[in-house]
């Protein structure tokens, strides 16, 4: 048992994550070809517009549809449908918590690929300043609110039906993910109505931003993702968790530096055991980069599954590097 534990704690997280992400990517982008269908309430961008390949449907799409139900129905029987959908979403979500972002989300994975391309080109990643970070991280809540309120407005008869899925219209996933199954049909501007035109043009723009942003900044899009905001609202009862034992922390900041989401609290907060913040994508890079025994740990149902160890740290940070012939010094 302790041997297994050591093996796990010594894991090369980078590689593990790389392959797991590919697995999830295949599942959500190509799973449909294997007749996999995980339902309509997935807490990740398994895009509905990727009609043949998708292995299930991203919950945001049915959510917008449901919210757009006529009010009389929504506040009656149909409400039950919304609740069931929510419940299914929540059940999926609480298993993996925000690791849906760090491991499963195809858009997240694509961003990581772009980042590693950038690293290969020797270009450094951009960082937000603190005030930028603070203001940017509220955007996702605004987007989430709009994603829910606009359809609600349609159901109440206040807004046109062409705005039925406002977030899908601007979501880069709608344009990008179908491309992986050879479907370029989403990569156009819809001239059928003014609203559609504006929204799809906006979508094009955001897709462009998605690529450039991800090239400049790690996980650029995730700061704005309304799905991430929705996740956070449900994260309290989640089974998979990130915990910190502040007493063991030396505040060296190793975790903060490797954090794609620039979450300062991971290094600086030594009071909160449940250290997962709203921007966190539960990628666990921080755990892998922590040299203090047990200071950061991944728990599932309260049991530690992976934790920071000195040995693991050394395996991950140093060993690979000494293999390279050090240059002669003189």
């Amino acid at each position, binding site marked *: 048992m302790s041997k297994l534990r050591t093996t796990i704690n010594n894991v090369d997280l980078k590689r593990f994550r790389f392959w797991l992400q590919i697995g999830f990517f295949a599942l959500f982008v190509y799973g449909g070809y294997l007749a996999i269908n995980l339902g309509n309430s997935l807490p990740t961008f398994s895009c509905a517009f990727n009609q043949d390949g998708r292995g299930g449907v991203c919950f945001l799409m049915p959510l917008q549809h449901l919210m757009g139900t006529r009010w009389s129905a929504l506040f009656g029987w149909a409400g039950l449908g919304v609740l069931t959908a929510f419940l299914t979403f929540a059940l999926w979500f609480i298993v993996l918590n925000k690791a849906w972002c760090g491991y499963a989300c195809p858009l997240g994975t694509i961003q990581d690929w772009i980042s590693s391309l950038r*690293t290969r080109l*020797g270009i*450094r*990643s951009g960082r937000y*300043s*603190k005030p930028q970070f603070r203001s940017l991280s509220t955007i996702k809540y605004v987007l989430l609110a709009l994603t829910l309120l606009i359809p609600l407005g349609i159901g109440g008869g206040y807004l046109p039906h062409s705005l039925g899925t406002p977030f899908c219209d601007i979501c880069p996933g709608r344009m990008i993910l179908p491309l992986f199954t050879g479907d370029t049909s989403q990569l156009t501007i819809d001239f059928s109505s003014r609203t559609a035109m504006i929204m799809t043009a906006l979508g094009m723009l955001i897709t462009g931003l998605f690529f450039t942003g991800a090239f400049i900044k790690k996980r650029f899009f995730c700061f704005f993702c309304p799905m991430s905001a929705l996740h956070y609202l449900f994260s309290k009862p989640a089974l998979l968790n990130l915990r910190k034992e*502040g*007493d*063991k*922390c*030396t*505040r*060296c*900041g*190793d*975790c903060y*530096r*490797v954090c794609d989401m620039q979450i*300062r609290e991971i*290094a*600086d907060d*030594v009071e909160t055991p449940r250290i997962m913040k709203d921007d966190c994508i539960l990628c666990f*890079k921080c755990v892998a*980069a*922590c*040299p203090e025994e047990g200071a950061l740990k991944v728990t599932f149902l309260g049991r530690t599954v992976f934790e920071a160890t*000195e040995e693991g*740290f*050394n395996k991950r*940070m*140093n060993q690979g*590097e*000494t293999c*390279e012939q*050090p*240059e002669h*010094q*003189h």
Partner: protein
Amino acid sequence: MNSPNINTEPSAFQHTRQAREAEQTLDQITDRFDDNPKAMDYFYGLFRRIYCRGEALQREGTLVGTTCIHAPEELIYAVGAQPLRLCNGSYHFDQAGGDFMPAKSCSLVKATLGVLSTENAIPGGGRPELVVNPTTCDQKKKASAMVEEMGYNVYDLELPPGKESEEARLYWQRSVRDFSVRLSKLTGKKLTRSRLKAAMAKTARAQLAFRTLHNLRKNSPALFLGKDAFLVTNAYFFDDIDRWTEAVEQLNEELRAREASGYQAAQRKAPRILFTGSPPIFPNLKLPLLIEEAGGVVVADETCSANRMLYDMSAVDEWRLHDMVDALADRHLKTCTCPIFTNNLDRRRRLLELAESFNADGVVYQAFAGCQVYEMEQRSVAKTLSDKSIPMLYVETDYSPDDMGQLSTRIEAFLESIKTRKRKRS
């Protein structure tokens, strides 16, 4: 490996005051204790060669002196130079340095100035081609100009006064980047990714060896005495890093064998002491020696001549030059628990953590008279520890040996009170 007491031709150096002072401390370290680990012979021999006989350091490459742990030595190695920590612990040089500093100033700064004003910054070391002076405490900051007047090239590595804010971190990262440019100019060697990676692997190996040693000291009863531990980390100041690492790895192996055989370096009930405050630097190992001669054992420390210098390691996300340099910068700022920074919460938390994980019975806090920041932090540290009922002895002292009698009384009384406290509990 050198045996500790090889008799060679006596040189003129051996009769200098600094050599005699070093010899006295070494004799105390080796002769007053039984059963010193065999692997310590490397270190005893090293100090005898360098400090008592003034032999050459045997290090190739441009010497870059540093006056504090904040200067990332990985960068120095990466441009093909050799770092040399200049912080000095000699009473002889403390007195010599008195010419430069006001009467009530820190022995360490005085001794460092004192030694720099002589021909050899380290016996057998020669003059460093560049002295890197991180702008830490006021005394070190102001010492910079004096070192320059002595004819050294001095580089002031600008450190922010606090380390909490993101601004401080970015400011420091920029400082370190500028420093790396200066270093490249010094040796004419470009800082490249592979060179830095190799340098980081070198220090990482040394740190790993240190950490292993550090963890072995958690053993109870103790496997290893603090006086030797300080000697080992003091050797890191000037020894070739690869030789040092190998010697520590060997020491670790011996200690593991000791552990397996149930050996004990101190009595089972010897009070376990956590050492904090102003750094013990050879030959000023006065306080650790007094503690261990009185039957205590120093099991861990929180000082910049040992733990703070070697413990914390850097993590890099993207192994590219910029990310690596920033990672080094972070490690040399964020982890530091030096009292020069605006608050000392990290230091207090670190002490509690060390006391807990090393099962320490008490803390000895050394403050060099004149080191205002350590003197000032005494109160808050004492409060933190007493809240957790960890006894602390605060000792204000300097490099002079004249308070030995008084200190030994205080230390013994402190150890005796720990023993009665333990007896009462059991």
